[in-house]
């Protein structure tokens, strides 16, 4: 299949970017990233600069790949990262537009690569349980209801790719933050620090320049792991509860 690609090219964060047009010969069995490999190979053969994009595991779990394909983060398929998207979902002769995540809190590094370290800083603000190695009691000492553990697991499957931010018209990181708040808060081990955690993480999220949530719901629709927007509702309840219902107050950084 013959495709026309319009790809965002940008040297670095301080220079301006623009779309470049390429044509590429693809095979329907290729993954989307393999199609880009083919493009880059041909660019290198012409001694031209390849298109830079982030990728690693290529099996939908590391969260590295991050591109908006025809206006949708990770492309047209539901529950699928760009690396797992295959070319048979595209048509011969089609034009495909490829852009980076666009959000103030995710500055562009080069071409399709953005800086997502804001996510790391949100986790550093409290996305953990304060237990040192060696302090743990027996793993079966605290039974956890099966349904509850599985609800926590569903929230914990977030791969930190940032598609939720890229999809949201406000570039909000509420789905990402609330998934971690929910995962830890649902587990009895994480409940103890819950009040402080939810405030710290929300405060950090706000200070990174992510937008607010206005219940558009596109984050859930575009999330390759199907993280539920219910987590946002849960985090809002818990945040309000922690601010008005407890002595713990986390000051803005």
């Amino acid at each position, binding site marked *: 299949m013959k495709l026309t690609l319009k790809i965002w090219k940008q040297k670095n964060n301080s220079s301006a970017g623009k779309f470049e047009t390429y044509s590429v010969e693809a095979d329907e069995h290729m993954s989307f990233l393999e199609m880009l490999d083919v493009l880059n190979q041909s660019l290198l053969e012409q001694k031209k600069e390849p298109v830079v994009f982030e990728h690693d595991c290529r099996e939908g779990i590391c969260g*590295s790949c991050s591109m908006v394909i025809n206006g949708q983060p990770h492309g047209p398929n539901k529950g699928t990262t760009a690396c*797992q998207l295959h070319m048979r979902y595209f048509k011969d002769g089609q034009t495909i537009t490829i852009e980076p995540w666009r959000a103030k809190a995710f500055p562009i590094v080069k071409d399709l690569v953005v800086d997502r370290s804001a996510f790391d800083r949100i986790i550093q603000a409290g996305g953990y*349980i304060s237990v040192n190695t060696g302090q743990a009691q027996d*793993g079966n000492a605290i039974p956890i209801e099966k349904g509850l553990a599985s609800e926590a*697991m569903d929230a*914990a499957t977030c791969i930190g790719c940032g598609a939720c931010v890229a999809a949201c018209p406000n570039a909000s990181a509420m789905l990402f933050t609330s998934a971690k708040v929910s*995962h830890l808060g649902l587990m009895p081990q994480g409940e103890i620090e819950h009040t402080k955690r939810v405030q710290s993480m929300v405060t950090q999220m706000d200070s990174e320049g992510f937008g607010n949530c206005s219940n558009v719901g596109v984050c859930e629709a575009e999330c390759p792991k199907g993280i539920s927007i219910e987590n946002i509702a849960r985090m809002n309840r818990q945040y309000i509860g922690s601010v008005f219902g407890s002595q713990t107050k986390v000051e803005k950084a």
Partner: protein
Amino acid sequence: MPLKANSPEGALDDKWTKYRSTMNLVAPNNKRRIDIIVVGTGLAGAAAAATLGELGYNVKAFTFHDSPRRAHSIAAQGGINAAKNYQNDGDSVFRLFYDTIKGGDYRSRESNVHRLAEVSRNIIDQCVAQGVPFAREYGGLLANRSFGGVQVSRTFYAKGQTGQQLLLGAYQALSRQISLGNVEMYNRHEMLDLVIEDGKARGIIARNLLTGKLERFGAHCVVLGTGGYGNVFYLSTNAMGSNVSAAWRATKRGALMANPCYTQIHPTCIPVSGEYQSKLTLMSESLRNDGRVWVPAHKEDVMAIREKRMSAKDIPEDRRDYYLERRYPAFGNLVPRDVASRAAKVACDEGFGVNKTGLAVFLDFASAIQRYGKTEAHSNGIHNPDPKKIEELGKKVIEAKYGNLFEMYEKITGEDPYDVPMKIFPAVHYTMGGLWVDYNLETNIPGLFALGECNFSDHGANRLGASALMQGLADGYFVIPYTIGQFLSKEIRTPKINSDSPAFMEAEKDVDGRLKKLLSINGSQSVESFHRRLGLIMWEYCGMSRNAEGLQKGRKLIQELRAEFWKDVFVPGSDDEFNPELEKATRVADFLELGELMMVDALDRNESCGGHFREEYQSEEGEALRRDDEYAYVSAWEWKDGDDPILHREDLEFENVELKTRSYK
């Protein structure tokens, strides 16, 4: 040089406890003055960095990824073993130890493996305390499942994403230490050299991948948790960025690389579909509980399938060859990974492969769907169910067990595995070899430690399923925090390491020269194209089966390819910018040397064991033939640029297990 394993004296099950209680400690006030570099933030690296930070050391942690959470540990599916005996099925520390030694085909060190089995129990406790959402039973207690090569149920899991959840646990512990200021995190920094001063590892040269700037980092010791080298084959289940460079740079500085020829080929991966293919995707070992592996028994059926004139379903039972069940009636489809992989290769070599490349076999769930369907109908009180109902109910059971894997398979291949059998083929998955370490996980270079997949220590010649996660976390959480004290207790008078000293400046100059050289060649072939060709050579001559003639030829081909690489590679851009092609070039350059060492090692080992199958050494029935009298040793190689590598042997002593031939007939 004499290799000293430094295993403690005493009875096997006392060694670690006694050693831990008597080893040297570093006082809290001294810990604050000691710097430790940890390279890699996967299970081993992140666990080590977090724990060493908790203890009060000053830790600097490095990853080439944009975040520590991206390390490839995240992709592990199945689970993590631990000798908890929660299932009351007779598991014990000794049994886990024994299974691991036997599964490794008696090529690992008893004392290390026993310690691994001991601390396996602490790992589960620790991870639960961190909030890892392991699967649970209705009573609220932890669930277990079975994995290949063992007769107990000791594998803990979190759906098919156990690696992800364990890595996030370690990442969160690490994040906490970063926020407390105990760990300084360097994302997008790649280690490009090791710095040795007065014979001790004292720092690294790292490249800031965003700016391209080379930076010198000094510390009292260096810990590597940098993963395996499966990507030397180009196509593997590893992530695209996984590389050997940190470990290989250490080897070039004098560390010994042990058993590099021990590579694990996983039997159930999605086959190669074309020349553009960039990586291979694993289908979990758990599928072989219910899937039956077969190829057509007649060549005309094979051709009909390849030409799409027939589908697998058109072939009647009596024209199928369930070759694992035929060859290994006792274990059937659940033989260990190395055995299943070789059998698939034999079937395809004989011309029975079922896709257009001839390199695929069927993994069929039709029998399981029938079996489960009938049971379900019966338990739902449906008598004389029609075949459609049986199929419907059976598919539901299969979906509950393997739903996410079936979905992944369909996404990649476009075929519905509930309806037609999966096509699978073996692929490179894990490397048992790695940097040689003693009982303290210290390499032969004082102050240089290696953890997890990047060392050679615990899996011998073949790793059992669900043991990689166990080893990474054992090394990081429960071994290195203690054993590092044996080295650091002698360093409390050593002042801060000065990274402007001649050793550092020289190492930086070396790296800079290498980068400039790569950029200046300005040849005509991409890095990727060299990597692909290296992979083909490795797979052909050092893959699932090897022979002396092929290994000699392979070594020569790699030497030629390496020479061509340094003459004709094309790396665009410059070294003072974000340049992924340059990163790739440094990694492939290192693979081009490691590949040769693997050939040398495989040629030297005149026996078949675990993942290393030498065609000259097989029984009359085609099974692996180990030669314990001559080869019960660890091969630790010293690399010499432009000269033959030098072999150092660590003889393995077995005091607690009897060496036997593995049989699955």
